[in-house]
């Protein structure tokens, strides 16, 4: 990491202003300070902020940065939960939100072309207006960009039935670290010509290239939906129901879990009259043709009752079900009503291990005496244990960091992964060797070197050696990934 050879901020500004226009280069500290963060807790101010408007401008910015070896941090709306866009080592924050045009929605071939800065919810609405369906629905959709969500391979409640961003990406336009522009994939649903670079760039967290445009697969809109709310007095029964729903081969469109602490915070935000005495809720959506859906909703409702639900209600109107979903999607932010800081995890386990994971999470929280809130995409085994804490309290934070390490330890023990959808960023990078052996990590490093030999793109993320060290010693766990056939 050698910043001494970088041009002065003034020289950078002059060069970059020539590319994007002077009003789209921000240098005042009061503007740069606003690019220091995402939804994680570390803040570092970039040296300069650049806001390109076209693929060509991105290309010229990267060409300049690469020649001067200046770090570049791609940034969408900075809603990331793993710290992906935080400019850890200074350099250029590359704000992609001006690239906000939906270029095409093709109803015959069922695809859309978008620029990276288009907001996910805006896109989903436009698609719905064209009477088509774009299923991935991260709770941050009203703010998050398509580019950021592709770079994280984001999911959402609909992932249970419909899959994640990667499953809807047909092709990409990517600007490489040296400014060269690559087009991957195409507009066909099938495509096996050559290596699948599309799938490689999706989920690469801004470390392999900057996504400028994407071709997105669309599907026909389901005829109708129903939302069910199942209320449990025992959280383990709720988790157990989920495993059984899956084992029974039922396929709701979404299957979400909400624990008691989550119910309380979201109720104090929205005042919907959710049951404050419940231990857990399952929020379930079924979709499809009207006749099938009505019957499926009844079947699942009966199934939940059989497996311990105190009551199950089916939303009577679209407005009512929208409110329930708003409640679910607000939790991730509403938890800040408990304590000022949150460490959000999204460790994911095989679906059959969900009940055990819930039990283990509760035990870990008790062991370290931390405020743990659990909600999330339980149908995918992708729970969001959120640890609520106060960053300013070092004693508490030491327990929090231990909790996180232990959550990862247990997740991997159960055959899971560090992250299901939020990405590695800097937050999980120190744990990468727990999940991936040295051979796998080395393959990733060599791949990175091919695309970004100077290591200018988003340094400090994904790879353990580059990230800020974990605040406490990880020695007590000493977990190493077993080789596949151990």
């Amino acid at each position, binding site marked *: 990491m050698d910043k001494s050879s970088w041009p002065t901020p003034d020289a950078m500004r002059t060069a970059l202003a020539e590319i994007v226009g002077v009003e789209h280069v921000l240098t005042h500290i*009061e503007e740069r*300070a*606003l690019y220091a963060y995402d*939804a994680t807790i570390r803040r570092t101010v970039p040296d300069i902020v650049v806001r390109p408007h076209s693929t060509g401008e991105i290309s010229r910015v990267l060409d300049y940065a690469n020649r001067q070896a200046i770090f570049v941090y791609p940034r969408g*709306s900075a*809603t990331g939960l793993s710290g992906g866009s935080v400019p850890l080592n200074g350099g250029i924050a590359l704000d992609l939100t001006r690239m906000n045009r939906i270029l095409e929605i093709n109803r015959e071939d069922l695809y859309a072309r978008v620029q990276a800065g288009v907001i996910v919810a805006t896109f989903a609405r436009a698609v719905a207006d064209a009477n088509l369906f774009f299923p991935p629905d991260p709770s*941050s959709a009203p703010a998050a960009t398509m580019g950021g969500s592709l770079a994280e391979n984001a999911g959402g409640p609909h992932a249970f039935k419909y899959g994640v961003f990667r499953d809807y990406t047909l092709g990409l336009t990517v600007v490489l670290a040296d400014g060269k522009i690559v087009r991957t994939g195409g507009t066909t649903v099938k495509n096996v010509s050559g290596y699948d670079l599309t799938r490689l760039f999706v989920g690469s967290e801004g470390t392999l290239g900057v996504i400028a445009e994407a071709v997105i697969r669309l599907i026909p809109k389901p005829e109708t939906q129903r939302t069910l709310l199942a209320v449990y007095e025992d959280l383990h029964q709720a988790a157990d129901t989920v495993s059984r729903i899956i084992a029974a081969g039922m396929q709701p469109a979404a299957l979400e879990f909400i624990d008691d602490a989550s119910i309380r*915070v979201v109720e104090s935000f929205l005042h919907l009259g959710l049951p404050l005495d419940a231990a857990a809720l399952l929020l379930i959506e079924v979709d499809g043709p009207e006749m099938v859906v009505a019957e499926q909703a009844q079947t699942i409702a009966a199934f939940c009752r059989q497996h311990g639900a105190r009551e199950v209600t089916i939303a009577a109107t679209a407005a009512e079900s929208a409110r329930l979903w708003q409640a679910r999607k607000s939790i991730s*932010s509403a938890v800040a009503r408990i304590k*000022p800081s949150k460490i959000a995890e999204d460790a994911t386990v095989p679906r059959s291990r969900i009940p055990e994971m819930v039990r283990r999470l509760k035990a870990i929280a008790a062991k370290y005496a931390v405020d743990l809130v659990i909600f999330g995409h339980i149908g995918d085994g992708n729970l969001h244990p959120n640890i609520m804490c106060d960053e300013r309290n070092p004693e508490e934070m030491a327990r929090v960091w231990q909790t996180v390490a232990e959550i990862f330890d247990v997740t991997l023990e159960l055959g899971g992964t560090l992250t299901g959808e939020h990405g590695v960023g800097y937050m999980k990078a120190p744990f990468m060797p727990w999940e991936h052996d040295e051979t796998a990590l080395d393959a990733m490093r060599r791949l990175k070197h091919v695309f970004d030999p100077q290591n200018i793109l988003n340094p400090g993320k994904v790879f353990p050696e580059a990230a800020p060290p974990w605040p406490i010693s990880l020695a007590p766990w000493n977990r190493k990934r077993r080789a596949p056939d151990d």
Partner: protein
Amino acid sequence: MSCIKCGLCLSSCPTFQQTGLERESPRGRVQLIASVAQGVMPLTQGPLADTMFSCLDCRACEVACPSGVPIGRLIEKGRAEVVHLSRRQAAQTPGEQATRLALQSLIPYPRRLRTLGRLVRWSQRTGLAHWSRHLKFLPEGLRGYAGSLRRLPSRTGREMLAADPSPVPAPGSPRVDLFLGCVMDVVFGEANLATKRVLERNGCAVSAPLGQVCCGALAVHAGDRDGARALARTNIDTFLQSDPAYIATNAGGCGAALLEYPEWFADDPVYRARAERFAERVRDASQIVETVGFRPPAGRFPHTVTYQASCHLHNVMKVGDTPQRLLQSIAGLIYRPMADMARCCGSAGIYNLTHPAMSAQLLARKMADIPPEADIVVTGNPGCWLQLEHGAATSGPPVRVMHVMEVLAEAYRSEPSAGQSES
């Protein structure tokens, strides 16, 4: 309730919608204030100062923020800091000076405002107002508005109220004190009269205590917290002395400020409790009408009407669907909802004067959202009212703008058995 930077407030913020800039967003504003508070950077007259004042105070962000961050209060404090700094550095633009002059010397004093009202009326009659557009020394925003400003009524609301006979209240009628507001009373006196009549038709005993002054909202939004508190104390004393069941407002901006008095006195051992006793009685007139048991008018109001939810009424007073429900109960009235009805129209107190360009963009969007069939836009705040009339007069559509209470009063007035409240 601290900000965890989730971004869920971004899309609700009109200034972010227009600019796409983080510094014009609630998340950005909160971060700037926090950075200064934590000593990460010093306070200067730079972008931070600008963005504190480019906020519309519409509070849409607070409704959107699941974490419950008190964004409005933080921004008001940020403004107070900036004002403090600029007083120390004494660097003020002519626009700032004009704003401050108005805030400190005019608005707190109803009598001076009435005098100004007479002056404006005189200038309108003599045609001077027409020329004001060309008077370069007026701030740009004010020049634009002077031409489209409605002809001021010859009497203030208080004067109209005094001349309006009240029915003898039935025993046990709830006592309601009317908060008249300053702009409302001078520019839209009829709305105060209409509010009185509607409340009376719904069985309330209405009076308007003497001694009430401006609510202080404009002062607090401009960063003058001490000035605002002085006004608030006078209002609290006046209304607690009168001791009504409800304090009725018909201006969302004022009502929201009155509701927030307890916050303004958070550190004041005496006035905090008094402010709480005061604030718990404050309601929008439409809410009172529903609470006491709405008696729908038997008369008709044959118009196609849409409703613009004033930000403070919607986001702070939380009137919800009440005004629309009242409107929809009127015979002959065809109601057409306006898309995104709670998005700020760009009036925002004196924002249209201090930030004419942003205000004009927001107004243009608002005017475009008016359903084409509507001939009347109903609102519940004088600032929105002036702004929408300005839009109707300049870009169109040429709708009429009315207050909820006026529409109701009109429907009562046209009842077949023509009631007592005729004038």
